[in-house]
């Protein structure tokens, strides 16, 4: 037989099918439910995995080729940046504090995503999503490592970076991002892919890695710009996977719609709460600014997310709950978060400061409805106090929300002068929340959220001292012991930027670079 004559050229889609899902088969020596034990307990009904549409059709040969090209470019820049002391080219050393948050609060999430997608990629009975998930798992370890490698050079010269994995598991505010991801990975595989594909990729990383990273570029940080943009190109595939997963689940069975709706409500709110940190990074920690948090939110969430929700309306999905509150909050959360961290600068691994007069003017222009009225007077008061030698450090511990684990810093919808508190009783215990959203999320899954490792509770229970600490010893200083447990070097990693070692070193090194002295 003449093969050439009968052979038909496969198109991209057919070829990809032969290269992926055609590899799978129906097992007969083991039962499907034993091979995929976690596929049904969430209640999602899938009738036909074949209906899954592969969004990107990258085979491994193309994957290796293009990813290697990205890596080559990225590491060439990382090397050049380190060799040329590129860190001295950033606008000013305050900027570095934003990327300390990135390394300690976000990089470990990339690692969690890697493990979580390995799990999801193992557990879906459909071959299409499995391949996509495993490729994403591989991409995510890339993101963790390119971030570590890019920021490694900063760690050599500046404080606050040096214990990022240790701190991620212990420091109070880092439990915000950690618990977000633990929540997703400890959920079933369907909720995981919806939560991360949608909330983390579509909402969170798009805001972090596009406008924030563009801001990093504007502030002279080529390293961060390169890994940020380079990572986000993978995220384009990941967002598409998340979107396809949502569509696929919704199309499979009408009974899936309310389940997915609850996840969209929950994960929009969870992701939005974690973004409070990014809001603060954009508005307060980039010395040169290109876009306010509010503007970025409008482009990447309201406009882009809005288009998505409009698109999903045909399945009976409505926009997520609490959007009206979110719309009001965008004038406030970055300021409220910054004020909180300014207070708790003793126990954080980055520095805070009072923005300059010019920066306050910028904030006033970007936030005409809120900044001058509510936040500028506060910042000016603290500035005045600091000038008199009374830089205020809060030495007590804040009450945390049981769900998002952020201190109670958010205000009542409609009243930015009143802190918002909610509470719920469960099995004889009282639980506290920052918002209606967090309270409802708790009430839907109380058995999950009562397990939360709340840093403040843990400190008060004596679980956050280094091994061998004797809290009954004379002159015991609990805060100092907690900082030792965090591996936080008090006096170097924490406190105000003004007077910090980072500030001194940066000035001295840049002085060496720009003068002949």
């Amino acid at each position, binding site marked *: 037989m003449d093969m050439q004559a009968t052979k038909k050229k496969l*198109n*991209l*889609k057919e070829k990809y099918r032969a290269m992926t899902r055609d590899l799978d088969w129906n097992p007969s020596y083991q039962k499907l439910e034993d091979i995929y034990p976690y596929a049904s307990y969430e209640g999602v009904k899938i009738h036909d995995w074949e209906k899954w549409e592969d*969004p*990107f*059709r*990258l085979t491994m040969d*193309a994957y290796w080729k*293009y*990813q290697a*090209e*990205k890596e080559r*470019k990225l590491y060439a820049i990382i090397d050049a940046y380190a060799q040329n002391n590129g860190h001295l080219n950033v606008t000013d050393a305050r900027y570095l504090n934003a990327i300390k948050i990135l390394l300690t609060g976000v990089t470990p999430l990339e690692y969690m995503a890697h493990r979580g997608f390995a799990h999801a990629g193992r557990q879906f009975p459909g071959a299409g999503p499995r391949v996509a998930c495993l490729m994403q798992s591989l991409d995510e370890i890339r993101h963790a490592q390119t971030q570590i490698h890019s920021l490694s050079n900063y760690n050599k010269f500046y404080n606050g970076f040096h214990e990022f994995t240790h701190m991620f598991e212990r420091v109070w505010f880092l439990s915000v991002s950690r618990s977000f991801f633990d929540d997703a990975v400890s959920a079933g595989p369907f909720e995981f892919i919806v939560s991360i594909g949608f909330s983390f990729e579509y909402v969170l990383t*798009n805001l972090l*890695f*596009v*406008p924030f*990273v*563009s*801001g990093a*570029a*504007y502030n002279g940080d080529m390293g961060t*710009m390169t890994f940020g*943009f380079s990572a*986000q*190109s993978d*995220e*384009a*595939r990941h*967002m*598409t996977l998340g*979107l396809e997963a949502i569509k696929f689940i919704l199309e499979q069975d009408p009974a899936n719609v309310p389940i997915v709706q609850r996840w969209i409500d929950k994960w929009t709110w969870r992701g939005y709460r974690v973004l409070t940190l990014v809001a603060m990074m954009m508005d307060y920690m980039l010395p040169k600014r*290109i*876009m306010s948090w509010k503007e970025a939110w409008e482009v990447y969430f309201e*406009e*882009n997310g*809005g*288009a*998505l929700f*409009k*698109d999903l*309306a*045909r399945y009976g999905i409505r926009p997520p709950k609490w959007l009206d509150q979110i719309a009001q909050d965008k004038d406030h959360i970055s300021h409220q978060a910054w004020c909180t961290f300014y207070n708790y600068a003793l126990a954080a691994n980055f520095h805070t400061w009072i923005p300059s007069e010019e920066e306050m003017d910028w904030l006033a222009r970007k936030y005409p409805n809120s900044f001058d009225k509510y936040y500028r007077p506060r910042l000016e008061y603290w500035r005045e106090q600091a000038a008199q030698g009374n830089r205020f450090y809060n030495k007590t511990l804040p009450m945390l929300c049981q769900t998002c684990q952020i201190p109670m810093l958010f205000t009542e919808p409609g009243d930015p002068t009143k802190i918002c508190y909610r509470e719920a009783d469960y099995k004889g215990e009282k639980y506290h929340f920052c918002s209606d959203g967090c309270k409802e999320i708790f009430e839907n899954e109380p058995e999950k959220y009562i397990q939360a490792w709340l840093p403040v509770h843990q400190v008060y229970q004596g679980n956050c001292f280094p091994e061998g600490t004797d809290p009954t010893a004379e002159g015991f200083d609990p805060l100092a012991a907690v900082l030792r447990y965090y591996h936080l070097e008090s006096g170097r990693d924490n406190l105000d930027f003004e007077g910090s070692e980072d500030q001194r070193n940066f000035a001295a090194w840049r002085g060496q670079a720009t003068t002949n002295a």
Partner: protein
Amino acid sequence: MSTVFIALQANEDARPIIEAICADNPHAVLNEAPGMVKIDAEGRLVVRRSSIEERLGRAFDLQELQVNLITLSGHIDETEDEFTLSWNA
């Protein structure tokens, strides 16, 4: 109509791609930011292999887009010849 977008790194590799996209999508709006170019378009945006090849003077595989892509939005439809972003509503 909702807006779809694609963002690419502002570098030499991406320049002909950006040109091709703008030529093929007269309704698209180009937004420049530090390090990146974001192209917004109402409803639909098409990236054509042939248009890029014309500008590059060599064969181009649409999957090469990955290398300089930053982000995008909308549903994706990918064939050998076209890469399309669109919303259904």
